[in-house]
């Protein structure tokens, strides 16, 4: 926008200043308004210089002429009569005042324009800074928006300065043309015309013109120097912003809620880039000028290359930094956990060049490389990127979305020979586990714009490549650790010596995990509990956790991270809403829990996560007996398996505590601190279908609830007691010791009560009749068997048994297609035979501590985990119990010892475990073992457990696809060579530089002896023509009178002054002077 227009759009306060400026000025505002564009386009400053009175005169007369034209133009109608009058008067006044001293007028206009610009700057800064009276660099409350404003303001200033420089350049061009013409006309070398006074006068004029030209050239150069200096500051600002964005992106990868859009950065980088490229063109044009006309000590010749190198370096640096990875590598279904890739799975990654400048006719090619510079770690896996690894960024098709290299649908494949030298799998592996191996993808872009050609390069954050889903959790732990602690985002050997994490940092990152999974981070109290769990009572902000402590070791058989990730999984699947709404207290130690509940009335309960079980949640409530200390009771934790069939609010609503002589009651009355249960959980209860009594019903309604039973007058006081008691509570809900991780009290404690109590709920829907100590048919190892026989002829029931204690579970509410919940855990020697309703039979015959978990409802998980010799024979009835027939089922078989599993569904289609994934079964039994799921009619499945990863399904009519994940993974460790740090840069430098010679004496002032012998040559000694002199160019002889001369006529020509000897003054200060 033209300056005068901008001035007019200023705020009132600043407009007032403009009015004041013109109130005192000899140039009436009406003239300024009338000839705004022309006035702004002239170089008044230069015309105001002494020696250029001709230019000033020309400008002055042009102005008068233009005014005259304006007056005579017919466009001015009657209504402009006054305007015409004012213009006429102004013209007369100007002529009277400045006719004789046009350079004064030029100076006046130049100063006015400068003052206008100053007011404009103030006004614009004020407008941006809002109410701030002065643009002082004082730290503001919001540094971010402050910085944004600064950048915008500086970009605006940069643009203005660039326009100014271009304008100066155009004048220089004109000036040079005029000189060139005059020179060719008047300068006639070869003849001696010194006697001709006319000629001498002409030469003097020429000399003066050249003088001005020289000064103007220097002025343009100074302007460009200044411009470059300011753009360097701008560059630093932008790089700081970019760095802040990088850090934000890194945090966002870890789940932090932060804004990572690139739009403002892209705008800024593009604007600066564009300006700098414009500047580059200007420099090239300056160089052209110099080719047309040059003279001895032409500043253009010397300084333009310097400026160009500086500018190119700046541009290159800017472009290189502006190439960023916009989207870090991520699998499409794991958006919350990027940077973990699985071989064979698709992933995407994209990079963006923030400087959106591209030649129309030039395509740029982007390529990606994985581990271009792999770390020298023994056994470091090598991968190939499948599908295309290059992409062409065409011109034009990126106008909207910017210069983006978007790579979708990539997959990784491990190179066959990548493990060479390791002596086979499992042997001689280095210290880096698969999940600690960090890989990088590097983008390269062959950039070319306006003659500047560069190869730009950027790298992703390091990522982990896994081959199996169950490595995901520990892979994510690595990603967390790296991004939390590493300062060098290319450090692929980070896990050779992983640093410990300071607790405050770790706490923040852990909180983000909860926030990203369930929209609510960890509170102070939560973090306090976690800190105490990790560091004991001496936890402090200085505490730091070692990597091994975080992800590997754990007193309870699983690591801290595994425990936390279990909880995260539980939250994600089942408790998201409760957690988000703050109903789950979650992380409370037992000690703390007692403290909290002690003062509350009986029936006050809280929900917390189990510390002993992976992914468990439990309720603890307080009871105040008539006499004695308050008692605290907790239920054996619920895990995903249980919550899949019944949501936690429903469990709480219907929870019953059974004491032999009392009627069942729900002990959970008030959610801590004192919210009535139904008030707190009401919104989360699932709808009950009230029975319609009038309707003839096939079945009675039932619902699934949780109960605990205990002996009357039992009480628990100490914490140890509480633990035992919890065990003794005989929750019908079964403890899924899925990984066999923790059964602290063994079977002994449980047994005494085991067979004693049986409760059948919900209108006696089923009954369990365990017959102990009898050898099961065909199974010699199992000494006991359990046969629950339901009394009534009720519809499909699947009992849940646990060495003598069973629970009848009735899923669903209606009578149609009840969803089946089957949970079988046999922990003692015994055989469990469940025959629901006499229609179907389910036989589970595990040996020692075999555990069978079949939960096929929604999630569809079947987890038979026979630990010893055991046999499992679920024989479902003909009709209802559909084992995992609805949903995708998953069969997870882990037999630690010799084990046998024989699910024998009687009818086709009864057992259809449909694996989630591509049908890979990897049972990894440690010893010899056998796994035989044999669907009777359907087909046969015979995994050969001796060698991991082999599955031989023999499908019949219906093909049972068994998907099972190997548990108890064998981590693939590989050799790691600890390398000494890469050759030190410093050493290199050391070799390059030499120390200052140690000065033994002081008092001698040490002056750097930088005296480049550049152009030292005296003027007199210079002759000879510049080789570049082409036909049109004019070279001036050094003896020529055209050489720059001092403006002051009284001074001699500079050149003549240089004959003096180079007697430098002494560089010493005489010490005696000061004493």
């Amino acid at each position, binding site marked *: 926008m033209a300056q005068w227009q901008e001035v007019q759009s200023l705020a009132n306060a600043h407009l007032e200043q403009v009015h004041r400026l013109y*109130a*005192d000025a*000899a140039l*009436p505002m009406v003239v300024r308004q009338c000839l705004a564009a022309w006035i702004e386009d002239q170089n008044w400053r230069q015309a*105001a210089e002494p020696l250029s009175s001709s230019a000033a005169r020309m400008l002055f007369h042009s102005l008068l002429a233009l005014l005259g034209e304006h007056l005579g133009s017919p466009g001015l109608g009657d209504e402009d009569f006054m305007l015409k009058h004012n213009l006429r008067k102004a013209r007369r006044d100007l002529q009277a005042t400045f006719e004789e001293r046009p350079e004064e007028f030029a*100076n006046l206009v130049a100063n006015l324009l400068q003052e206008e610009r100053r007011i404009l700057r103030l006004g614009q800064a004020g407008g941006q800074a809002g109410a701030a009276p002065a643009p002082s660099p004082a730290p503001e409350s919001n540094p971010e928006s402050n910085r944004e404003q600064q950048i915008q303001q500086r970009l605006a200033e940069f643009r203005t300065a660039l326009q100014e420089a271009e304008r100066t350049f155009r004048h220089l061009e004109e000036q040079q043309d005029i000189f060139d013409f005059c020179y060719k006309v008047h300068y006639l070398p070869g003849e001696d015309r010194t006697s001709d006074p006319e000629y001498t006068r002409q030469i003097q004029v020429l000399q003066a013109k050249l003088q001005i030209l020289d*000064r103007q050239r*220097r*002025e343009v150069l*100074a*302007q460009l*120097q*200044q411009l470059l*200096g*300011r753009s*360097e*500051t701008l560059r*630093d*600002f932008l790089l700081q912003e970019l760095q802040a964005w990088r850090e934000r992106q890194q945090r966002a990868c870890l789940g932090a809620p932060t804004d990572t859009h690139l739009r403002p950065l892209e705008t800024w980088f593009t604007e600066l880039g564009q300006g700098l490229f414009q500047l580059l063109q200007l420099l090239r044009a300056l160089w052209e000028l110099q080719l047309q006309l040059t003279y001895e*000590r032409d*500043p253009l010749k*010397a*300084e333009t290359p*310097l400026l160009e*190198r500086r500018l190119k*370096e*700046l541009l290159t*640096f800017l472009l290189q930094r502006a190439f960023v990875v916009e989207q870090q590598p991520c699998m499409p279904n794991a958006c919350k956990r990027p940077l973990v890739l699985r071989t064979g799975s698709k992933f995407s990654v994209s990079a963006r060049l923030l400087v959106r400048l591209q030649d129309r006719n030039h395509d740029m090619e982007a390529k990606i490389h994985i581990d271009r510079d792999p770390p020298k770690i023994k056994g470091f896996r090598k991968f190939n990127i499948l599908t295309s690894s290059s992409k062409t960024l065409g011109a034009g098709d990126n106008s909207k979305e910017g210069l983006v290299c978007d790579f979708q649908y990539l997959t990784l494949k491990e190179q066959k020979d990548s493990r060479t030298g390791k002596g086979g799998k499992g042997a001689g592996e280095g210290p880096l586990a698969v999940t600690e191996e960090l890989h990088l993808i590097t983008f390269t872009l062959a950039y070319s714009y306006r003659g500047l050609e560069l190869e730009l390069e950027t790298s992703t954050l390091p990522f982990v490549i896994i081959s199996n889903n169950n490595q995901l959790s520990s892979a994510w732990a690595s990603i967390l650790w790296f991004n939390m602690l590493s300062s060098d985002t290319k450090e692929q050997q980070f896990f050779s010596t992983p640093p410990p994490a300071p607790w405050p940092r770790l706490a923040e990152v852990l909180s983000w995990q909860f926030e990203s999974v369930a929209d609510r981070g960890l509170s102070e109290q939560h973090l306090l509990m976690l800190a105490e769990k990790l560091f004991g009572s001496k936890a402090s902000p200085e505490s730091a956790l070692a990597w091994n402590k975080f992800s590997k070791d754990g007193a309870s058989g699983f690591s801290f991270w595994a425990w936390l990730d279990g909880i995260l999984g539980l939250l994600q699947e089942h408790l998201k809403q409760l957690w988000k709404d703050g109903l789950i207290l979650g992380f409370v130690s037992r000690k703390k829990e007692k403290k909290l509940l002690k003062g509350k009335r009986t029936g006050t309960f809280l929900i917390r996560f189990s510390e002993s079980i992976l992914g468990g949640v439990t309720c603890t409530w307080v009871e105040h007996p008539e006499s004695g200390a308050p008692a605290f009771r907790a239920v054996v934790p619920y895990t995903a398996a249980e919550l899949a069939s019944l949501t936690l609010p429903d469990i709480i609503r219907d929870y019953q505590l059974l004491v032999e002589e009392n009627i069942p009651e729900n002990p959970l009355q008030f959610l801590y601190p004192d919210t009535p249960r139904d008030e707190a959980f009401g919104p989360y209860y699932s709808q009950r279908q009230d029975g319609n009594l009038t309707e003839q019903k096939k079945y009675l309604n039932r619902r699934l609830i949780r109960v605990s039973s205990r002996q009357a007058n039992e009480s628990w006081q100490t914490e140890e007691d509480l633990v035992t008691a919890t065990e003794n509570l005989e929750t019908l809900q079964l403890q899924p010791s899925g990984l066999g991780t923790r059964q602290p009290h063994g079977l002994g404690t449980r047994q005494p009560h085991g067979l004693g109590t049986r409760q059948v709920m919900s209108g006696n829907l089923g009954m369990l009749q365990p017959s102990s100590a009898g050898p099961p048919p065909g199974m010699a190892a199992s000494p006991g068997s359990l046969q629950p026989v339901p009394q009534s002829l009720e519809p499909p029931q699947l009992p849940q048994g646990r060495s003598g204690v069973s629970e009848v579970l009735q899923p669903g509410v209606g009578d149609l297609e009840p969803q089946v919940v089957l949970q079988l855990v046999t922990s003692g020697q015994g055989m469990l035979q469940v025959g629901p309703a006499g229609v179907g039979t389910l036989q589970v015959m595990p040996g020692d501590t075999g555990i069978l978990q079949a939960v096929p409802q929604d999630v569809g998980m079947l987890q038979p985990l026979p630990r010893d010799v055991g046999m499992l024979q679920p024989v479902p009835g003909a009709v209802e119990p559909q084992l995992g027939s609805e949903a995708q089922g998953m069969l997870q078989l882990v037999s630690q010892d010799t084990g046998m599993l024989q699910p024998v569904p009687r009818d086709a289609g009864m057992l259809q475990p449909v694996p989630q994934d591509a049908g890979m079964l990897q049972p990894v039994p440690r010893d010899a073992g056998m796994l035989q799921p044999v669907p009777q009619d359907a087909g046969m499945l015979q995994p050969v457990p001796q060698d991991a990863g082999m599955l031989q399904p023999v499908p019949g009519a219906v093909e049972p696809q068994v998907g099972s994940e190997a548990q108890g993974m064998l981590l693939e460790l590989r050799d790691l060579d600890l390398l000494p740090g890469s050759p030190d840069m*410093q050493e290199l*430098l*050391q070799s*390059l*530089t*030499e*120390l200052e010679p140690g000065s*033994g004496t*002081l*008092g001698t*002032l040490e*002056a*750097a002896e*930088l*005296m*480049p012998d*550049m152009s030292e040559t005296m003027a007199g000694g210079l002759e000879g023509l510049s080789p570049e002199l082409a036909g049109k160019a004019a070279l001036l002889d050094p003896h020529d009178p055209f050489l720059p001369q*001092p*403006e*002051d006529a009284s*001074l001699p020509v*500079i050149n003549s*002054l240089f004959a*003096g000897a180079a007697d430098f*003054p*002494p*560089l010493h*200060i005489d*010490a005696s*002077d*000061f*004493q």
Partner: protein
Amino acid sequence: MGQRSGRQEISKRLELALNETMKAEADVQNSKEEAEEPEGKNQRITLVFGVADLKNGAVGLYNVGQTCCLNSLLQVFLMNIHFTGILRRITVPPLAVEKRRNVPYQMLLLLEKMQCGKQKAVSPIAFTYCLSVHGVKLFVQYDAAQLFLTLWNLIKKQMKKLDLVEELSYLYTIGVQEHLACQKCSFETKRNSSMLTLPLPLLDSNSHMLKTLEDCLQYFFRPEELTDENMCFCGQCGRKTPFLQSMKLVHLPQTLTIHLKRFCFEKSAYIHKLSHYLPFPQDLDFNAILTENQCGADGNEKAGWQYELFAVVAHSGSTSFGHYCAYIRSLTECKWYCFNDSEVCQVSWDDVKCTYGHSSLHWGETAYLLIYMKKRPQ
């Protein structure tokens, strides 16, 4: 007509202000001759020069032939009110020839021209002519640190009045005490010496880059053992012995010039520039940097060792070819300006910070001379 008369008033006012300044300056000169009591004199000087500095805004200096280095130094000199306070009291040489050859006088003329003119920049041609008489030629690239010493010495030498010379020395020179102690017999020699700049190395003895200006200062003042071929002759032992060389800071001047030795010599005599990052603070407290052993001054002197940054002379380009500009914080307005020959613009501390340097950018501006100013005692 109203407009016009208004304008005349303004210009009159300006003239008036000018006249006042000139009168005050004349007064100063007179008063000096009359040997008035020094306190009143000083007061008047600050009065005058408080106005004088930047009265006309920051004014540029035209490049009249690779004079960017000279221009930058001139700006640093002339923006320093403590220096101009001395400069304005010089005796004017009587003869025209002498006038033309007198560096301080020409400098004063230049200052007047900058302050009185209305142009955005003035040409230092007369001054460069004067310098060339004394061997400082045009069209030669200078090292700013070296040219600073040359200029300073010329000014000092050509000032006729002894008290001004003394003031000038007091304003700029650093006093140090050099200790040499024989490691064999604890024979110690002390020597006081003066320096105009603190030439700070940017690399330590292992060629590792020092991290901050404070590190450089500490490294500069660290004691050094002179062994092997550096051994000195000990008069007491009668032979060459290893010596411990140490330096104590005795006096710091009002205007402290620090020279960052960014130009580095190699065995091959090829000079290269160290462009790496070296931050310097706006406020510098020598008491916090030097240890007790490294100071040889009394508490009074040390209490004044609080400095704030006044100017940065920055260099861009390579050793063989480059450009100088100066960042100067006006002592009256407390605003930063950047002087690029004829181009002057107001900048911020962020712009000055850009001269810290950057290890991967070799052509950008890097601070070369740092001029710190003693803070006013509070």
